[in-house]
């Protein structure tokens, strides 16, 4: 009977869509199987039934008295395919989002319950887990969320951020210059009073795993709704990009998020296919040592995935860790001395300056052949690096850059966006 009811709703909404004069195409047509639970108990025929929405409500609430438990308030849904750490479950008027590992070493998963505002709160969840959506205001504590807000057209709901100094997004910089954005600082030193004063619907932040230095315990303590975003723990570029859908859930912007990600996915797969059967994969290593220890990205890390997909042979691809591995400088030297490419150095200016800081850098073949490339082509005047900001949302552009670096003839027309050759 339930199945039949939801079918009825689907047909009804489809008919409505077909009849409306300016029917916009809905990319994700709700199917009966997409709604895992339909908890309707009252048939909507007895009273003048509120019509089921054909789109997610990206603004405002369900008007008072109009709530109908049989209606699927999220006809547009996201499907998660690449993010390893994230699941979302749609119910008629709320969505349950679970992050399996919210921060490194987390003992438990983290669940948020996103309730369509104007509808009742489901039972069995703690207050701090429940967030009314679409949200009207938020504070972000990492610049990596900004490109998604920009893409979904909701930057105007940003009321504050950790620090505007290292932002690259021009709109956000403009907003900050106009005094529209409060800054709340980082970590455990976060300005709680400022946050309470702004009273944003959520603060989106990340957990480092060092709880005593993190902002979220302090904010939760103060009664602020905090959302942990664990995008940075995903080990593939596409996985990280898919976290845009996570952000979209809070705005009911599922359609935008699906469109953005599908476009990224399509282009990424096309580019990856270019190098799939290539012969002659150049060898590559990355980073710089710190106090004699070289933190090398593991063989199953984010960086390693990029290198592999771009048709290069990462020198530590035999390693099976997803984070970075502390190696001694001499171990890296031994393996990477004859490597073709040296990438992702962090903060470097010129080859000359590198040599000055440590003369041993000049012994690498990649240094001698000038094949040193860094991801700092797009820097704001204050030193905000767009690679750590928008590149999260557009991994296909990074991949194109890398392919251009490793195999210039595969993408003759591509102009580097994030990368620059260190000279």
């Amino acid at each position, binding site marked *: 009977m339930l199945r039949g009811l939801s079918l009825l709703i689907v047909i009804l909404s489809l008919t409505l869509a077909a009849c409306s004069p300016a029917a916009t195409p809905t990319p994700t047509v709700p199917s009966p199987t997409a709604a895992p639970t339909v908890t309707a108990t009252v048939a909507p025929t007895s009273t003048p039934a509120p019509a089921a929405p054909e789109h997610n409500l990206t603004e405002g609430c369900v008007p008072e008295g109009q709530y109908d438990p049989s209606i699927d308030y999220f006809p547009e849904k996201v499907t998660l395919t690449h993010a390893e750490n994230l699941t979302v479950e749609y119910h008629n008027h709320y969505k349950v989002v679970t992050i399996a590992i919210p921060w490194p070493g987390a003992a438990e998963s983290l669940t948020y319950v996103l309730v369509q505002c104007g509808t009742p709160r489901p039972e069995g969840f703690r207050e701090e887990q429940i967030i009314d959506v679409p949200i009207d205001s938020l504070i972000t504590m990492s610049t990596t969320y900004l490109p998604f807000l920009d893409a979904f057209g909701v930057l105007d709901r940003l009321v504050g951020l950790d620090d505007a100094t*290292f932002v690259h997004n021009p709109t956000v910089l403009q907003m900050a210059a106009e005094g529209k954005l409060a800054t709340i600082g980082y970590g455990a030193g976060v300005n709680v009073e400022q946050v309470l004063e702004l009273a944003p619907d959520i603060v989106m932040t990340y957990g480092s795993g060092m709880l005593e230095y993190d902002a979220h315990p302090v904010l939760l303590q103060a009664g602020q709704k905090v959302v942990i975003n664990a995008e940075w723990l995903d080990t593939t570029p596409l996985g990280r990009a898919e976290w845009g859908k996570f952000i979209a859930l809070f705005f009911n912007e599922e359609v935008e998020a699906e469109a953005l990600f599908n476009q990224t996915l399509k282009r990424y797969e096309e580019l990856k296919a270019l190098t799939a059967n290539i012969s002659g994969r150049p060898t590559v290593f990355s980073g710089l*040592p710190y*106090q004699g220890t070289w933190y090398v990205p593991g063989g199953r890390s984010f960086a390693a995935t990029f290198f592999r997909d771009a048709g290069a042979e990462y020198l530590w691809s035999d390693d099976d860790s997803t984070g970075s591995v502390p190696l001694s400088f*001499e171990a890296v030297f031994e393996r990477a001395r004859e490597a073709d490419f040296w990438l992702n150095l962090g903060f470097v200016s010129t080859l000359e300056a590198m040599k000055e800081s*440590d003369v041993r850098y000049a012994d690498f073949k990649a240094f001698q052949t000038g094949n040193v490339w860094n991801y700092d082509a797009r820097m704001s005047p204050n030193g905000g690096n767009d690679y750590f900001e928008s590149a*999260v949302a557009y991994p296909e552009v990074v991949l194109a850059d890398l392919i251009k670096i490793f195999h210039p003839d595969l993408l003759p027309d591509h102009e580097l966006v994030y990368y620059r050759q260190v000279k």
Partner: protein
Amino acid sequence: MIMNLDEELNLLPHLGVRWWVLLLLGTALTLAFALSLTFGSVRIPPQQVFHILLGGEGEKASWSDILFKFRLPKAMTAMLAGAALSAAGLQMQTLFRNPLADPFVLGVSSGASLGVSVVILGMGTGGALGFISGMNALGDLTVAAAASAGAGLVLGMVLMLSRRVQNTLTLLVMGLMFGYLASAVVSLLIYISRPEQVQVFSLWAAGSFGGVTWSQLRVFGPITALGLLMALGMIKPLNALLLGDDYARSLGLNVRRARFWIILSASLLAGASTAFCGPIWFIGVAVPHVARSLFNTADHRVLLPTSILLGAALALIADVIAQLPGSQRVLPLNVVMSLFGVPVILWVIVRQQQLRQSFAG
């Protein structure tokens, strides 16, 4: 500056530096040095090491680079830092007549931490993705310069005070206060920083001999040599001070002047090694005690050379262990140092009887 107290007052016990002591320690140091050159992440057969050191060609071209550009400067750094910290620790323990005093007791290391934290925590990394890149953000030289500036600042203040303050204990308290002050600023900076910046800072605080290149050694080496020479010049005043300020004064020692030079020497040694290697704990406390126990004496003519050689050797061995020979990974140096240091301190506490003798004079 150097008092000739020995003959006049028969202050020193009969034990002098015996040739066999030096020979033994020299051999131990040479062995440790050889170990440090032979064992590392990259496996190089010992005969190849020997061959390359004598000017031969290695089987692999990279081996001679690894030996001359990595292991040799690292071994030199370990020796210098080990010697410097042990000598500085011994001087502080004697100056304050406190068996638990370490080279950093006057706040030199806190000052260095302050300098480094200003640089590391003051820099932006741009979101959670900046995690790794933040570590590369600074050349090691910037860190060394910042640490030197911080250590120099505290050192300057302590030295200024040491000329005015009559009582050595007052000086100790003031040094501690400077240390607390610097630590408070560091804590404040940590508090308002991003977690990933804190992590970078904690990496510096873990200590390492591997970040020093030949060009840095050109600075680190002479400063340490100067500090050690100054320490060797202070042997007799140190022996006199062991008996207490008043007694030393009655022996004709200019306590304030002696104190000034001892502090300058110890702070140069501790400051330079902290600037280039990060704060390295325990070796400065532990080695002087080992030296005292080995030769059962409080005579600095024995203790100082012994501490220098022993400190150099222990630092080399600690570094070999930290490099986890055979594996490519490395351990934080201070972890290994503590594994060394704690048993030694415990051993010293157990043998307190003898400790009391050394410090009661």
